[in-house]
């Protein structure tokens, strides 16, 4: 089996929103598995990286990349990740969005200051919904 063909199988995996492919042909057997499954009941908190960002007035809007329930805190009794005026470093968590029993942390992609938080605790957020108004630092 050629590297090109293996790459083709990996591409299939990526494009089709699936987790695992098994391929059998004569004496060849290959199994390709994604690291982070699309659907899982695990309580781990893999960060979501792909933020949708939009410019508005002088501020930058950080939007939700997924549909889920918005939480400002990592757990019910902990303090919020960020408050109005918080200065956030690239890689810091901003909020948790629960989707299909999976807690997804939204991570800042750049250094910024929080101007306003646009969603209330435990509300549904849609794809593309504005979550934070920030000023890049």
């Amino acid at each position, binding site marked *: 089996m050629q590297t090109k063909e293996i790459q083709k199988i990996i591409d299939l995996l990526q494009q089709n929103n699936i987790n695992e492919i098994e391929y059998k042909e004569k004496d060849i057997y290959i199994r390709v598995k994604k690291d982070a499954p699309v*659907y899982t009941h695990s309580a781990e908190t893999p960060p979501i990286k792909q933020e949708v960002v939009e410019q508005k007035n002088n501020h930058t809007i950080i939007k939700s990349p*997924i*549909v889920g*329930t918005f939480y400002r805190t990592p757990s019910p009794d902990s303090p919020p990740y960020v408050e109005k005026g918080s200065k956030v470093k690239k890689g810091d968590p901003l909020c948790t969005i*629960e989707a*299909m029993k999976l807690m997804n942390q939204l991570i800042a992609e750049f250094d910024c200051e929080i101007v306003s938080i646009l969603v209330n605790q435990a509300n549904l957020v*849609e794809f593309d919904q504005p979550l934070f108004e920030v000023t890049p630092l």
Partner: protein
Amino acid sequence: MIKSVFIANRGEIAVRIIRAAKDLHITSVLGYSTADKDSLAYRMADKKVCIGGPKSSESYLNISNIISGAIASKCDAIHPGVGFLSENADFAEIVTSSGLIFIGPDSATIRLLGDKIASRNVAIEAGVPITPGSTKAVIDIEDAYTIAKEVGYPIMLKASAGGGGRGIRIVRNEKELPHALTISKTEAMSFFMDDAVHIEKYLDHPRHVEVQLMGDGKGGAFHLGERDCSVQHNHQKLIEESPSTAISSLMRKRMTDDAVRLCSHLHYKGAGTVEFLVQDNEYYFMEVNARVQVEHPVSEVVNFVDIIKEQFIIASNEKMSMTSSLSSIQSHAIEVRINALQAGIIKELHLPSGPWVRVDSHIFRGYSVSPYYDALLAKIIVHTAERQECIDIMLRALDELEIEGVATNKDEQIAILTSKQFRSGAFTTQLYEQLFPTKGENDE
């Protein structure tokens, strides 16, 4: 009864589902992509949740966003519509395990029927005739030679995980077989991630006739007569009608009885269609579409049954409104699909109306036909006492139809309806190619 339904679909079918939900006082929550923000379904739904970007993979196929949207908006059921996730067994299973009702058959039934070899075997179990061919995946070329010889050329190599006409290769003689087998296995792998293929006799002048079924999930099943979908291009249906001009009343009785028996055997739940090919006075089981179909209005009008409403009733585990199968056919219905030939903005629009005309559509003046999704703009359904009048009224409706800004297949549909062959009722699935020889068929 279901109180609130999440609609994981778009376009005309989303509008159709919202209408049925309204009739049943069910709250409709539409999951929509950013490209469908100005859609009619968006305007009509009680609530809406954006589930992702324009590409289907980001939205209408995004299982996590759909489930999260449904749960967070407190729906108790998901209607998958047609296409997208409607026949995805994994999705159906996740919906159920998330505590929601999946409006459709059980995931196990969907999985079984998605496997064409398994469904051929189920048909045999239920005593339904199948096309001559294999009941197991082809093992190797020697196996293929043996089966093909038994069946007799021409044969078809079919991807077992395929369906809807995809993943099919016609083989006319023994010489072509080795090459065709290699190609079809590779194609099956790349399209369906499963390289299993099987052999079926190729029918070269068939009619496509399908039986609409409703099952209660406990073994009870009714049929709503048949639809003839022989007018196709590249396996895409263009015109559907009921009853079919291809079958005698005796064949209708046998075929619908077979379909009911199969559905009952499967403990099939909800709306489904058993597809058959008819050739030379014989009929053969092809596949079951485990969902509602685009052409369902044809059966609705000849039976006075709202199929989507029945889907909601069955999914709610309540008693179907129907108490028996269609007893006899007393009228005729034709559906014509109006498809866009390109993306663009609809500048002017007049949809036909008047006696005997029903139009199911999601378009309006100013609507932008998106390049991301299928081309269906409107379904025009005409229901009259008999077929010739039905064709005449359909032609009147098409004459009224005005769509400006986006090229459509309207003229082509008029040409088909006015053709001698269509009028006579004696034609095959080759009708389109006969009428428009230059448009050719995709090489498959």
